[in-house]
């Protein structure tokens, strides 16, 4: 059974300016224990999709199942199994962090003592123990998101929906949330998150759906998505231009510029030994070789026809897995 299954979801809002198709066709399935990333620009339909999956909005057509339960027919049962952190955090800023977590726990049916216990546990988990008795008004943006995450975890949901969990956060806060999300996944929680950051999808998601204009354009693992646009790029360097030219003659589908030779293969690490043996057979020696993958940027551009306009996460991103051999 899938943790989450969206089947041809569509949502049309009736507005005074006429109908607006926020979501046109969204289908995907998420296996238990996965981190599933929904990547797309502002207005692509990410939040609307999350609202439909979390029983908060009824789809116009299509259906969705959470652990086999229909989100429209079994909405109460679905809500008990999922945790939701929406973009609007929905936090009463006049209360303290501790008061909020405790009272939310009580609303979920925990006893007074269980609620305090769980509140202490969750606040320490998201690193807010020291700020627990301060009013939320004094919290930073990152602290509010972490508090929101704690609130969505109170009833120990099996599936967690996070709508743009790190939008607008500074790199440090973003990193803290990323680590927390990975830790939750390692504990067995299925996570569905939306993001407009390529780096975030790449760093966190086991699988990604690229959504644009309300339609899922492409879906797969980050590596599969990148591979879908032509595999890895292998770059050889030689001592002289002449050697490079000779290499170009022996390797089909290659392109020589100066002392360098570039070729695209399905799987870089696997292909490099083959390419080396071809060169050896022709008595050619390479000085250096590197394999690099196309980025999600390239994938997004190819499937949607435009670049994903989003603020870069930050420059020295060592969690991303772009890199050579």
């Amino acid at each position: 059974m899938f943790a989450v299954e969206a089947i041809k979801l569509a949502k049309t809002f009736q507005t005074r300016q006429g109908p607006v198709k926020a979501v046109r066709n969204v289908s995907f399935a998420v296996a238990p224990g996965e981190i599933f990333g929904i990547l797309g620009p502002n207005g692509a339909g990410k939040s609307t999709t999350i609202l439909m999956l979390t029983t908060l909005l009824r789809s116009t057509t299509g259906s969705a199942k959470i652990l086999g339960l229909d989100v429209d027919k079994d909405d109460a049962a679905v809500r008990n199994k999922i945790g939701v952190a929406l973009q609007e955090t929905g936090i009463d800023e006049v209360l303290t962090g501790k008061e909020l977590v405790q009272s939310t726990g009580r609303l979920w049916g925990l006893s007074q003592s269980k609620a305090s216990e769980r509140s202490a546990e969750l606040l320490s988990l998201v690193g807010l123990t020291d700020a627990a008795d301060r009013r939320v008004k004094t919290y930073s943006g990152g602290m509010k998101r972490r508090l929101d995450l704690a609130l969505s975890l109170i009833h120990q949901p099996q599936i967690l929906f996070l709508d743009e969990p790190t939008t607008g956060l500074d790199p440090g806060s973003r990193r803290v949330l990323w680590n927390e999300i990975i830790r939750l996944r390692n504990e067995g929680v299925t996570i569905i998150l939306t993001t407009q950051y390529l780096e975030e999808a790449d760093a966190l998601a086991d699988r990604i759906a690229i959504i644009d204009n309300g339609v899922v354009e492409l879906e797969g693992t980050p590596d599969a998505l990148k591979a879908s646009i032509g595999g890895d790029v292998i770059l050889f360097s030689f001592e002289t231009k002449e050697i490079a030219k000779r290499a170009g003659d022996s390797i089909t589908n290659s392109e020589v510029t100066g002392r360098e030779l570039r070729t695209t293969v399905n799987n870089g690490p696997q292909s490099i030994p083959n390419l080396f043996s071809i060169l050896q057979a022709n008595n050619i020696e390479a000085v250096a070789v590197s394999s690099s993958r196309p980025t999600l940027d390239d994938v997004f551009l190819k499937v949607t026809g435009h670049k994903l306009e989003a603020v870069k996460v930050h420059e020295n991103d060592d969690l991303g897995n772009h890199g050579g051999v």
Partner: protein
Amino acid sequence: MAIDNSGGATFGLQLWILTKRLLIRVIRRPYTELPTVLISAFFLFVYVGQLDKVFGGSAMPSSIDFSKGNFVNFILPFSIVSASISGASSGINLVEDIESGVFRRYQAMPISRWAVILAPMLVGAVRVFFQSGLILSLGILIGASPATGPIGFLAILGIAFLWGMGFAGYSVAAGIRSGSAQGAQAATFLFFPALFIAPTFVPREALSGWLSSAAAFNPTTYVIEAMRGIMIDGWISESILKGVIASGLFALITLTFAVIAARKVTEKN
């Protein structure tokens, strides 16, 4: 929506936790309560100042000596009822919760919609209760003395509580329908006809023409008359009963309207 407790707290506990949270908000931002207290106090002092010599003298011909010589006793219920405008804050609070996403968070939890609506109404009632207490104390300072003694004060506060709940429900419904704080605020204009198409300054018998007929349909009339009875004439069960029924019915109707409005908002379309 049926009251659904599956996987969550009981209805009573939900209501208590939601109410407690809103009360904490009031206690931590007490300055937001000031304007309405001041309005009620202002009404009390101004009307006593303006009308005490006209209606308050015991030398009056008996036909217009309706305050039995103590005009403060007569006008105090009006001032208390005017404190009900503080119930309007409940609607604004609810709109704040919709805008901040708190409402949606509740929607994603196993919480009864009735509890979500009833909580701000109760808090509105508590507001009106305490403000009425303040106004009553002020009234005592300037000479009010109820025919029923201290227990009469408690009875008046009880009716004020019910009435405050109704007015809070009205503002909550208006807030949900309009979806904006301005809408909730604007809807409180009803407060003025409610206060003045009523036996505000004189008994109902002294009203004339359309006002006298219209006042009979205004629940405020019965609330004021019940409180006046307690202040001036003693325990008159008929007027007290009418006052309790009028404010109770008003609260029930506004609660129902607010829940229907909330259902529309959360209908997921």
